[in-house]
């Protein structure tokens, strides 16, 4: 056993090392916006309403990583470029940003005023949708390691389809945060709609193909 792994390592050492390096780089690059915006916040360079700006920056980066995660599969199917190995990293970055975003809201904005936070979650649709998205991301992040993938088998695939609901909730959350209908949230909503429509289209095509065969 040991012997065979050693041989494998010797035969193709560079791709594995390269993957590790690239993954590490992705984490570094991925966390850079958060480090930067916290740095600006702590040095009082975030303008008139730094808490809100911090919340918004972390929120928009959560959404961007979520979109990046959802783009991996269509990108591979449509162009052959495969970033599948980095999908987990992108998914985890989404989760970490969502946590930072939520922590900013809880700790800095509302200072753990649990009564106000609970009222917000129940009464304000935009917070309700945000919480829904975060709540879904938790089990997905927890089951994102190799061991869980192996242990859960096909259940893992089913479980991780919940990310579609999380993405929908996140896009709605953004639409509801803003007053009126400015362009950016509509654009983000449209991107997510397209990414989900792609899955739905594929699913429907597969079903249609399967049905005549079964008949």
């Amino acid at each position: 056993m040991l012997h065979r792994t050693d041989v494998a390592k010797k035969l193709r050492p560079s791709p594995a090392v390269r993957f590790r390096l690239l993954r590490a780089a992705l984490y570094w690059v991925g966390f850079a916006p958060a480090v930067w915006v916290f740095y600006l916040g702590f040095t009082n360079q975030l303008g008139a309403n730094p808490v809100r700006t911090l919340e918004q920056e972390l929120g928009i980066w959560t959404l961007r990583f979520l979109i990046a995660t959802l783009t991996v599969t269509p990108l591979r199917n449509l162009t052959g470029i495969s970033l599948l190995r980095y999908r987990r990293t992108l998914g985890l970055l989404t989760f970490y940003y969502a946590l930072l975003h939520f922590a900013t809201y809880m700790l800095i904005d509302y200072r753990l005023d649990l009564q106000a936070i609970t009222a917000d979650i129940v009464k304000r649709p935009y917070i309700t949708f945000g919480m829904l998205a975060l709540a879904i991301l938790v089990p997905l992040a927890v089951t994102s390691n190799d061991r869980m993938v192996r242990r859960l088998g096909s259940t893992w695939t089913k479980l991780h389809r919940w990310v579609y609901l999380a993405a929908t909730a996140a896009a709605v959350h953004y639409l509801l945060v803003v007053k009126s209908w400015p362009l950016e949230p509509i654009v983000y909503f449209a991107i997510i709609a397209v990414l989900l429509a792609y899955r739905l289209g594929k699913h429907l095509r597969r079903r249609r193909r399967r049905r005549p065969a079964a008949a």
Partner: protein
Amino acid sequence: MEIAISGIHRLLFSHAPPVRPSEIMPRDVYLNRRDLILGATAAGLSAAMAPRRAEAAQLEASPSPLSTDEEPTALEHITNYNNYYEFGTGKEDPAKNAHTLTTKPWTVKVDGLVSRPAEFDLNDLLKPVTLEERVYRLRCVEGWSMVIPWVGFPLSEVLNRVEPLGSAKFVAFETVLRPEEMPGVGGFFPVLDWPYVEGLRLDEAMHPLAILAVGLYGETLPNQNGAPIRLVVPWKYGFKSIKSIVRITLMEAQPPTSWNKQNPREYGFYSNVNPEVDHPRWSQATELPIGQGLFAKRKPTLMFNGYGEQVAQLYAGMDLTKFY
């Protein structure tokens, strides 16, 4: 008078020696506060002082007992954190884009149910009035607040000049609409139905706290704050205080108002600051004071933004959860 002077005194000397003001606040803010005092107390001196912005002019204003003695928000924040959707929906868009607005010459038409309708050139409108400095709290419907040293005069002075008819019950206001100067009004999804319109009941408009502002921090208004002339109604959410006014119309029926048209469930005609009536998206119980850094503490929002003593009687007997 006494109160106002002591307020200004406190404003100046709350950071009294041994700490020098320049050590603890941005230089322009500190200079600014000095300008303000000189502008108010030693008119001759202030005239010799150059305004901070090239296009701005120094204004002379007398202090008012209606001012709060709270510490004003820094000029930098008042002029860089704005909602003026004609220039973009981002908070910093107006500061970036509003320089394109031509404010000279400027006329304000006052018409409707009045005996002497008129189209005033801004200079004529201002000629008979005495400018006052009114340091007011401003509470935005989005849950943040500022303290702003406005320079202006009571709205009632303009209304009295045109002599409202007995049938006039409401006052409608309209913001200038110039798509060629306003990058925010075009586009595929107009954010609001332009021009921006607002309204008050006549008795609200006649209230001494309701002012037309032409300046802040002792100088003419920056464009992003609603130059050259805007409404300030401190007991209502900020969006009621319409900017860059070109028309004031007295009416019998309640006039349409922009945010109410956009979303009647979220924005009522009255829109009095009320911590007990939540906006469907935000709690209105607390507010975040602007300009106090990342760890600014939310503070409780006060009924009528703290002006209840002066204005509550305007709403006696009204169910304010219904007339929000």
